[in-house]
């Protein structure tokens, strides 16, 4: 089990070593000590690794992640798991703004709160936040699912494409072209599967969630508007 202490080893050496793990053999479980808020920690990993980071991290942790399961035992700074492709990123504390931004796949779990712009421009990632999310979350979200156990801030889902949003608590306001939609059985099944995947089975009542999505009046080309272009 490789253990890397960032008070001894440089961040660049760690990331280089993680990038070289295309065939990790038996050394799949990595432990990173003393992250101390450094940026871009474990960014660009492309291997089936299980990486435990013991402390708070800075910006862009686990960015572009492919395949790996990366757990942050602390808070994460701006842009955790931004542009994630696959794998799982689990933040045990809070995440700062733009968590999971532009993510294309994989699962991002945040046990605490996420700040503004959570899931901005999400393109296929699934995000489960057990606390609250800040304003402008899922802005221009194109695909993927955002599940929030707590409350959502202002302008949720502004200019939304086809990302799907489930919120259990209060929504301060919906953004342009984002509307509440009825919960049907298929949505309850989808939500239950996401909650299971986040390891939170039974923690919340699926009946308390409401579903939000795009009204599809903003992004569709309408022939009636042709003279406006």
């Amino acid at each position, binding site marked *: 089990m490789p253990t890397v202490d960032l008070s001894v080893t440089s961040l660049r050496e760690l990331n280089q070593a993680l990038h070289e793990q295309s065939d990790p053999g038996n050394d799949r479980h990595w432990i990173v000590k003393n992250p*101390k*808020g450094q940026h871009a920690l474990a960014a660009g990993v492309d291997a089936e690794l299980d990486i435990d980071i013991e402390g708070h991290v800075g910006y862009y942790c686990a960015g572009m992640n492919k395949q790996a399961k990366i757990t942050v035992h602390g*808070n994460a700074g701006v842009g955790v798991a931004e542009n994630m492709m696959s794998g799982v990123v689990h933040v045990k504390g*809070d995440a*700062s703004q733009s968590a999971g931004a532009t993510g294309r796949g994989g699962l991002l779990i945040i046990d605490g709160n996420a700040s503004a712009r959570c899931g901005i421009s999400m393109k296929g990632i699934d995000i489960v936040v057990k606390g609250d999310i800040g*304003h402008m979350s899922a802005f221009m979200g194109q695909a993927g699912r955002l599940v929030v156990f707590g409350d959502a801030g202002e302008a949720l889902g502004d200019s939304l494409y086809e990302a799907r949003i489930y919120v259990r608590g209060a929504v301060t306001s919906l953004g342009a072209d984002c509307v509440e939609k009825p919960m049907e059985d298929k949505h309850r099944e989808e939500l239950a599967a996401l909650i299971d995947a986040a390891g939170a089975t039974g923690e919340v009542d699926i009946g308390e969630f409401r579903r939000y999505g795009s009204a599809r009046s903003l992004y569709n080309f309408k022939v009636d508007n042709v003279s406006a272009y």
Partner: protein
Amino acid sequence: MCGIVGLYLKDQRLAPELGAHLETMLVKMTDRGPDSAGFAVYGEPIDGMVRLTIRSDAAEPDFESLSARLGSDVRITGHGNHVLALVPASSLEQVKTVIAAEPDLVISSRGERVEMYRDVGLPANVAKRFGLSRMQGTHGIGHTRMATESAVTVDGAHPFSTGNDQCLVHNGSLSNHNDLRRRLRREGMEFRTENDSEVAAAYLSWRMNQGDSFGDALTHALDDLDGFYTFVVGTGRGFGVLRDPISCKPAVLAETDAWVAFGSEYQVLTDLPGIDKARVWEPKPSTPYFWER
């Protein structure tokens, strides 16, 4: 870009270490602001005395002759091109008259508790120049500047102090500062620069002059200041943080039984005693946070 830091002690046994911690925090923000740096440190008041921080813009400051002109009841201590003058309250007007007559001298802060130092250069060099690591006190704030809209000058460095024991550091940019400056000038506030952050400082000073509590002044700022900001504000007894509704500019707060600390990024806080057990969180938009003793 810019980096801002702040440390407010709840446990005064840490007072001898305040400057050392603040210096570590400031230096960690070098990559967010390598052009210039500044800081304010608050100490316990000395009965009947006012603290003036005086800066000299002369090529070779002559503080010995200044000391003679200020008179024997004013004690001055040199810190690089700044001096801290301890002035009996009864002599304050006379001392201000002497300083006003010297074209190279500027009073950068005044109050019973605050001292404020700033200069151009790397934060580590600025902190060393003024001996920050040896300073003691109850709380302090600091700023590292990456100039974007005006020149790299001492007057453009933060903090800005616009009232007794009041000062502010800012990460962001205000869009209505010209209008607000005109309005505040009509109300009698004085400005040294065209800098937007000085307007924010003066606005809070004006509010508190009008009778606002510290918390009320911060709340009113949300209505009257337009633009991007994360502020850290010091008063004689207080320490506050305010972010605009959009909150693009980063902010991290941490608190233990012994202290409250602010950093633009978490890495600012990593060497504080007890950080491993601190509550660490991101202050919410449009929400004043303040601590007062």
